[in-house]
């Protein structure tokens, strides 16, 4: 035993004697001014953009990031305790760009934007780091979006399909269920070969705690990472949060995997960037946002992509969330982000309070990638769904005035009513695509026309239960992914068979 000990001690001695401290020249500066998470530093002539700076304070080292490189001073955001920094403190440059830990070890964790744990589960065991700012993949590396992301939400999967590598904005006023859509989507990714990253920017910590509990309960934390910059964190951490979340996603992208990333929400991100910019004395523009607020979001969302086979074939699907004030879509940040993304899911208060939840507005919501990101079976049953839903709402408003309606209008109204009943879905209950196909098939082929409107949801529930009992039907939809003549026959007989067990049909 003692020989091992001697060996270790000898090794340690030789290691220590062989250790050479690096006494290369370092660039240093002095703090000229500190205020509200911002420091102005003199010197540091060789500082790089978004380089990590170390502030040597009496209470230990604090890190910061260089953001403004001027002729004779550097403006930096402080990532730690800014009260510790005093005027005249020494600042060292590190020659390192800001980076975050990445790897398999981050899965199932709750981290802050610097990759430090917030869940009390100990250090993140990884030795890989990615820079938080990276130029988005170029044209040659990309492929078109064609595989679906199943959100498990009937209205979205049918009308506004989202593909892997797409950027789909979720937009609406407060308290309309924007986060609920995102969380349901995460829950539905179980077994879909998808890693999820939820970036909470300026969210209440209680809300995030609720989300973590819900995801854990649903077993979704096995493939999910949460990057949390709560409402009480400084603007500098809020600003870097989405970029560090994206860097974590890029690790999986480089491995050829599919990642879903949710930025909740980018309006608070823009506000935090506005705060930093104003403190750094950059000139304000519209709504006091700085001139580069468009680039702020475009460079982030451009990093969402679908790579082609030669580059691993991975993808990053981004679901940014924007909160509007009183439904104002023409404010600065909403218009910016709408123009950057490949479509938006617009949530509407009217629908929400009428009880149509999720309150997706069929007319204003679009997906520019569209049906190429749907499985064939879904494409077949949901082809004209969006148009029908939008038409129904117009007709319904119109038909309130007159009582005499022609048969065609009446039929459309009846179909629309049932369609909107089907769109209703409870929170945390995502639905598999097979079941969605089954319901929509029943609807568009008039099998639901004699189901009373108030019984549609009951009918639907029963249909799922019936299908679960005869699981070969769902199985064949899932494997075939398209409805051929044989399968169609099978679906028809199943629905008719189920309808014989239902008592409340209109005679």
């Amino acid at each position: 035993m003692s020989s091992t000990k001697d060996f270790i001690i000898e090794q340690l001695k030789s290691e220590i004697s062989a250790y050479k401290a690096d006494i290369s020249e370092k660039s240093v500066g002095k703090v000229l001014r500190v205020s509200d998470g911002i420091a102005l530093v003199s010197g540091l002539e060789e500082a790089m953009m978004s380089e990590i700076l170390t502030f040597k304070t009496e209470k230990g080292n604090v890190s910061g990031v260089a953001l403004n490189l001027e002729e004779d001073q550097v403006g930096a955001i402080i990532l730690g305790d800014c009260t510790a920094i005093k005027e005249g403190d020494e600042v060292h440059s590190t020659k390192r760009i800001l980076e975050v830990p990445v790897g398999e070890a981050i899965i199932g964790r709750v981290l802050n934007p610097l990759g430090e744990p917030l869940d009390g589960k100990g250090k993140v065991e990884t030795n890989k780091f990615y820079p938080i700012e990276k130029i988005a993949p170029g044209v040659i590396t990309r492929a078109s979006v064609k595989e679906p992301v199943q959100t498990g939400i009937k209205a979205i999967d049918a009308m506004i399909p989202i593909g892997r590598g797409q950027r789909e904005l979720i937009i609406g006023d407060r308290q309309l269920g924007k986060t609920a859509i995102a969380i349901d989507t995460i829950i539905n990714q179980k077994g879909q070969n998808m890693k999820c990253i939820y970036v909470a920017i300026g969210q209440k910590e209680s809300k995030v705690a609720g989300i973590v509990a819900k995801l854990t309960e649903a077993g979704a934390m096995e493939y999910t990472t949460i990057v949390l910059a709560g409402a009480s964190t400084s603007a500098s951490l809020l600003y870097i949060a989405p970029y560090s979340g994206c860097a974590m996603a890029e690790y999986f992208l480089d491995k050829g995997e599919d990642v879903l990333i949710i930025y909740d929400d980018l309006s608070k991100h823009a506000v935090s960037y506005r705060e930093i910019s104003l403190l750094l004395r950059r000139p304000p523009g519209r709504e006091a946002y700085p001139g580069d607020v468009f680039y702020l979001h475009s460079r982030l969302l451009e990093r969402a992509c679908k790579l082609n086979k030669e580059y691993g074939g991975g993808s990053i699907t981004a679901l940014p969330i924007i909160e509007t004030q009183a439904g104002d879509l023409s404010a600065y940040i909403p218009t910016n982000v709408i123009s950057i993304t490949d479509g938006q899911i617009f949530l509407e208060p009217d629908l929400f309070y009428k009880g149509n939840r999720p309150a997706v507005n069929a007319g204003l919501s679009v997906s520019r990638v569209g049906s190429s990101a749907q499985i064939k079976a879904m494409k077949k049953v949901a082809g004209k769904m969006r148009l029908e839903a939008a038409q129904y709402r117009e007709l319904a408003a119109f038909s309130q005035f007159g009582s005499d309606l022609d048969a065609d209008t009446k039929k459309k109204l009846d179909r629309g009513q049932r369609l909107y009943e089907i769109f209703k879905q409870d929170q945390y209950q995502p639905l598999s695509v097979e079941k969605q196909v089954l319901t929509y098939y029943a609807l568009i082929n008039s099998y639901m026309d004699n189901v009373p409107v108030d019984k549609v949801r009951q009918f639907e529930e029963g249909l799922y239960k019936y299908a679960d009992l005869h699981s070969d039907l769902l199985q064949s939809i899932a494997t075939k992914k398209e409805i051929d003549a044989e399968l169609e026959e099978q679906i028809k007989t199943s629905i008719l068979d189920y309808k014989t067990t239902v008592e409340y049909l209109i005679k």
Partner: protein
Amino acid sequence: MKVSVQQYVKKLYSSVAGKSEKEAQKELKNFVALLGRNRSFNKADEIIRVFNDLWNKENKEVVATLVSARALMVSTKEILTDYLKERTGAKKITLHEAIDKKLIGGFVLKYDSKVLDGSLKTYLDQLKVVLEG
């Protein structure tokens, strides 16, 4: 019109550069009168500091601070001065010396915005990080 510190210093330097002390004094009087007219005496400290830097840069002079745990030998200082001359291309080196027992051993050389830290304290701090890491 607002005149920045940089502009003041540049003007001042070009007006006094290469002149005898007597001539320079006259220029300085004018300069101070200008400051008074522009009500810019609050910038005086800043102007002196920036002027100092500019003068050193233009005349290839380097002012360096050398902190050590105990007084250094003349030969060591010469090595450091040569090092500075080589690094900066300066003609004249002014070395301010100071003693700081906290360094334990070695020296810290500061010039412009650079630091050459060869102190035992930093060495030990780094060793601590490596061993803990």
